[in-house]
């Protein structure tokens, strides 16, 4: 591509052999965009490479730092983050947070109505008998997340949701203490994970997918990433 441009602009062929490189962030982060897409759209089909577009910036930066520190495990991500400075990670997070990409529907498994109902219950009311608060109590009424550090849950593929909930249980995803999501995931039954992930994957994405403003919810548990504000345990 670059060669074609160079040739069109009449440069000598030896100059064309030395490509001119745009001084832009997307050019710098070719490694990230190879897996996550140029705009952080991810791979909605397989759900394997997660979407980054439009997620709260502080959330994205925190995840990068957690991979760097080995709290969240995925070897190629850990390797890629290894020697990036906090300032650079924040700049990259800001880039992906600012991308506006429509959500694509991902395949979700066909499950019974009872399973979907159990999922709906967990999302909207939680399960007090297991000490599981409603997902909405932190992720927001529209489930689009809350600035600055709580991501949305709608529009994410079933496989991604269920694998993340599983990884908290197997200690391959963690963050600063108190790690509220790890506590919640461990209190869920494996069938609850299927239920909640199915319901979320079937749920329509609201017209406005932006995270709610900061401070618009009081978290129902203390979370380290939210500055450990919130109530209960």
């Amino acid at each position, binding site marked *: 591509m670059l060669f074609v441009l160079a040739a069109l602009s009449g440069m000598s062929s030896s100059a064309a052999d030395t490509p001119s490189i745009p001084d832009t962030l997307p050019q710098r982060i070719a490694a990230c965009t*190879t897996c996550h897409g140029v705009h952080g759209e991810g791979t909605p089909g397989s759900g394997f490479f997660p979407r980054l577009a439009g997620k709260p910036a502080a959330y994205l930066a925190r995840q990068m730092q957690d991979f760097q520190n080995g709290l969240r495990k995925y070897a190629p991500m850990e390797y*890629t983050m*290894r020697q990036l400075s906090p300032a650079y990670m924040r700049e990259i997070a800001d880039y992906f947070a600012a991308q506006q990409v429509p959500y694509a529907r991902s395949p979700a498994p066909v499950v019974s109505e009872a399973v979907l109902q159990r999922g709906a219950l967990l999302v909207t009311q939680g399960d007090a008998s297991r000490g599981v608060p409603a997902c909405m109590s932190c992720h927001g009424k529209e489930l689009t997340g809350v600035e600055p550090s709580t991501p949305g849950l709608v529009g994410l593929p079933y496989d991604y949701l269920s694998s993340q909930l599983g990884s908290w249980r197997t200690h391959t995803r963690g963050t600063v203490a108190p790690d509220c999501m790890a506590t919640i995931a461990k209190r869920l039954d494996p069938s609850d994970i299927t239920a909640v992930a199915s319901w979320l994957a079937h749920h329509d994405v609201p017209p406005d997918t932006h995270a709610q403003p900061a401070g618009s919810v009081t978290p129902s548990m203390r979370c380290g990433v939210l500055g450990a504000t919130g109530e209960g345990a």
Partner: protein
Amino acid sequence: MTRRRSLLWWIVAVACALLIAWWWFGRADVVSDQAAVSDATLRDPALIAKGAYLTTIADCAGCHTAQGAKPFAGGSAVATPFGDIPAPNITPDVETGLGSWNFNAFWQALHTGTGRHGEWLYPAFSYTSYTKVTNDDALAIFAYLRSLPAVHRPAMPLALKFPYSVRRNLGAWRALYFREGVYQPDSKRSPQWNRGAYLVQGLGHCNECHAPRDALGGTPKDKHLTGGEIPEQNWYAPDLSTQQNGGLHGWAAQDIVDLLKTGQSAKGAAFGPMADVVATSTQHMTDDDLHAIANYLQSLPPRKMASAEPELFDADAIAQQGEKIYLQHCADCHGKDGTGVTGVYPPLKGNSSVTEPTGVNAIRTVLLGGFAPSTAAYPRPYSMPPYAQQLNDSDVSAVVSYIRRGWSNHATAVKPEDVSRYRQTPID
């Protein structure tokens, strides 16, 4: 493997005999007492500041820090072919760290590789290099470590199999590979050269990676700084001589300084373990020290050309197939002629990471992609895409063979089997 084992036992037996003599006669020297160091000396801010700099150059935190944990508090391990060797806590915690150590004990550890109770330490701790560090510098490092906040963190258990688990057996190893002694300046050379030699051989412990290791994990003296595969990590640390056929052939002093200071240079970029070293250690060196290192490396003797192994397959056909892949995937960044883009993308032509003897660096870089390190001088590095998903083993072997043989490069081709092996390498 069994041949290697029996050779090992033979060496152990011979070396034991050597060792007993050495130990018997050498003991008095080892315990020679340092004058006691007062607490006031250790609290001297100037000494602590000097120690902070030296500790950074020596990269003590590189090993003595667990991923994402408090620096110097241990909890990490150094992987060796014989098993993992935990790096202990070296913060001043009394129970789990160096809190109750005096300087004499510290000097014994750094200089003679002996623990506090007289036990031999494993050479996974780079005392084979640090023995060259002067007493003054060791004192500064000790003062700095003493000034850190104490962190309570017990060491992990030793994960070595018999006979490696028996520290006494290290006597044989030490007799073969360890020469105790502070760096002795060469009066025929300039002070700058001597400073460089001291940094490279001593504090910088470059030889711990940039040299081959034999079956016992030791480095023969005549192989120092000639390059080697890093045990258990599957990266190749290239030859550091800049003379003919050396790994840094064609590098100017400034290129060496640039790489160590910024992570980038006109001749190549830092990646993998070297990116860690640049980020945590060398970028913080003074320009004088970096130029001293360059001056010393440029004086290393030329090496003999490694005789290329006869290739039992059609290397040129593989490389030809690689050219297409190169033009499609790589030339936009590294250039059709492999010259890269100065300050942005490293050249592949004449790059020691491409032409090193094994091919492992190029294979793994193509699979993993990645960023050069963020440094103060180059905070927003460009990156290379990972090709592990897009290219299969034969594509990767083709494109790597192409860059190893293209332009003026004359390295061996690599096979799809090599690629498949390195796909399995755990990343850290």
